C-alpha cells in the first residue's frame, strides 16, 4: 500500500475501486450520453480517451491529471452529483482545473447531501502508481491510500 498526500478541494471520506486516465478527462464527452440516456453504469463516452472509453464511472475513484474540454464541464459534473451518478471521488495528480473545481464546488454548495470528495495535487507519482481496479481510500485530510 502507498499513501499520497493531496489538497482537499471538497471534503469527505470514501473507499472505491480506481479507474485511471493519464490523459485529460473530457467531462462533457465522457458523461453527456450516459446522463442523458440513463446509463446506470455511467460508462465513459469519450471516444478519444482510449483508457476510459466504455468503462463504468459511477461510484469509482476517478484518478486523472485534470479535466479538459467544454466549459459545460462543471455543470455536467454538478448535474451528475445532483442525479447521484457521479464518481465516488475525483483524484487529481495536477492542480485542479477551473471546470472541475466549478463542478465540485457547485455540488458542494448547491446539492443537499452531495458526496464526492475531491483531492488535487497528488503528484505525477500517484498517476504512475495507481492502476485500474486498485482499492482507493480517501481520508478527510487529503491522504489517499492506494492498495
Amino acid at each position, binding site marked *: 500500500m502507498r499513501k499520497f498526500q493531496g489538497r482537499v478541494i471538497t471534503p469527505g471520506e470514501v473507499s472505491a475501486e480506481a479507474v485511471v486516465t493519464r490523459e*485529460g478527462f473530457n467531462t462533457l464527452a465522457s458523461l453527456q450520453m450516459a446522463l*442523458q440516456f440513463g446509463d446506470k453504469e455511467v460508462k465513459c463516452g469519450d471516444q*478519444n480517451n482510449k483508457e476510459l472509453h466504455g468503462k463504468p464511472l459511477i461510484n469509482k475513484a476517478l484518478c486523472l491529471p485534470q479535466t479538459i*474540454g467544454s466549459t459545460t464541464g*462543471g455543470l455536467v459534473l454538478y448535474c451528475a452529483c*445532483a442525479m447521484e451518478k457521479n464518481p465516488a471521488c475525483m483524484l487529481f495528480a495536477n492542480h485542479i482545473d477551473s471546470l472541475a473545481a466549478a463542478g465540485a464546488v457547485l455540488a458542494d454548495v448547491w446539492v443537499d447531501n452531495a458526496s464526492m470528495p475531491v483531492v488535487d495535487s497528488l503528484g505525477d507519482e500517484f498517476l504512475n502508481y495507481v492502476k485500474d481496479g486498485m482499492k482507493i481510500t480517501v481520508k478527510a485530510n487529503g491522504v489517499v491510500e492506494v492498495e
Partner: protein
Amino acid sequence: MVLTKEQSSILNGEQGEALAKVMKTLVMYGEAFEAEKLVPITSKYNHLVTSFGLKVMSPVYDLMQQLLDAGVCSGQKFSVDPRPLDKNVPANPLQRLVFNKFMYTKQGFYEEQLKKLGLMNENAFSCTCYMDEMGNKPKKGEVLSWAESSAVVYANSVLGARCNRNSGIIDIMGSIVGYVPYFGLLTDEGRRADWVIKIKTTKKPEAQLLGSAIGMKVMEDVPYIIGLDKWLGNELTPSTCAYLKDFGAATASNGAVGLYHIASLTPEAVELGESLINKDAKEYIIDDYELERVKNSYPVIWKNPNAKPKLCFVGCPHLSLEQLKEWTIRIESELEKNQRKRVVIPTVFTAAPSVLEAFEKTRYAKRLKDTGAITSYICPLMYMNNPLCKKMPVITSSNKLRTYTSARYYTDEEILKAITGGKN
C-alpha cells in the same frame, strides 16, 4: 481570500440566502486557485454557455429557479450559446420525435428563465457572441465572467480581454454579484507562456488541425506560437480573425487552452513579444508530418467506416459573415468544375442569427441557397448529441464537433470536394 465589506455582507447572508450561496460558490471556487480577492467585472455584457433546455439538465434549471424565486438576476445583460433546434436542419421523423418529446422538452421553460435573468435579446444565441453583428465584443483589458470555451479563448487571445475558463453556472454567478475571483488568466503572471510552438509547415496549416495538435500537447497551458504570422500576416483582418476563431476552438476542445499568443499578431504578443515566454518553457515543433500524424490519430467510430455521408456540418464554432461568403464562392466554383448544380450531401452552414440576417442581405445568400446548402443558427453539437446520430455518418470540418460526437473530421478542402461530388 480577503473580501470587502460589501462582499462579506453578501457572504454572511445580509442580502438573502440565495445571494449568500452564490458568493460562497465564488469564494470556494477562487480559493481552489489560491485567489486572494474578488475583482469587479468590467465588460458590458456577459456570455453564458448553457443555452439548451435538455430534460437531463433539470438540476441546472432548478438552481436557476432558486435564484429567480429569490429575486436574484444578472447584473449584466448576456448572450448565450446557440439554440439546439431548427426545423430547417434535416432530421428524420424519429429524430424530431426524440428532439422535441424527449431531449429538449425544457427548451421553452429555460428560455423564459434566461429572459428573466437578463438575456440581451431574442437573437442573442451564438457561441460567437463577439462577432460585430452580435454586439458582445469586449475591449482589451476588460474583466469577464464568460463561459463557452471557444469564446473565452477568443476573447483572451484575439481581443486581449481577461477571462478564466469558467464553467456554466459559474458564469452567471459572477455577473449576479458583479465580481470574479482573481487568478489564472486574469493575472499578468497567468498570461505568460509555458510553451513555445514553432510552426515549420510548408503551407498554411489547417486552423482546426493546428489547434487540435496544440491543444492535445499543451492541455491548459498558454502557448506562444512562432512562425504562424508567415501564413496569417500581421493584421487582425476579418479572415485572420475567422482563422483564429476556428484554431482557438480546437485548442480549447481538444485540450483546455484559454489563451494563446501568436508572435507579431495577437495583441499581447505584439505589445510584449517574447518577454511573455517563461524561462523554462517547453518546445513543440509542428511540421506537415506532425499535422498528418494528429489527423490520422482521430478515431473513426462510424459502424461502416466507408459509409456515404448523410449530412455535413460546417460552422462549429459559428461562421463569420466573411466565411459564409467565402464558402459560397468556393462551392459555386467547385460545383462548376464538377459539372454539378447542387451539393451532393445535405450540408448545413451554421452562424449566429444576426450574422445570418446580415448574410441574407447580401447577394451571396441566394447563391448559396441555389447550391442546395442550408444555413441555420443551431448548435451542431446539440443536434448530434443523441444515440440516433451515432448511427448516422456525418462529416464536418470542426474539430470541436468531432471531439464530442461521432462526426468525422475532414479538412475544409476535403469537405468541399465531398459535398460537391469531387474526388478526394
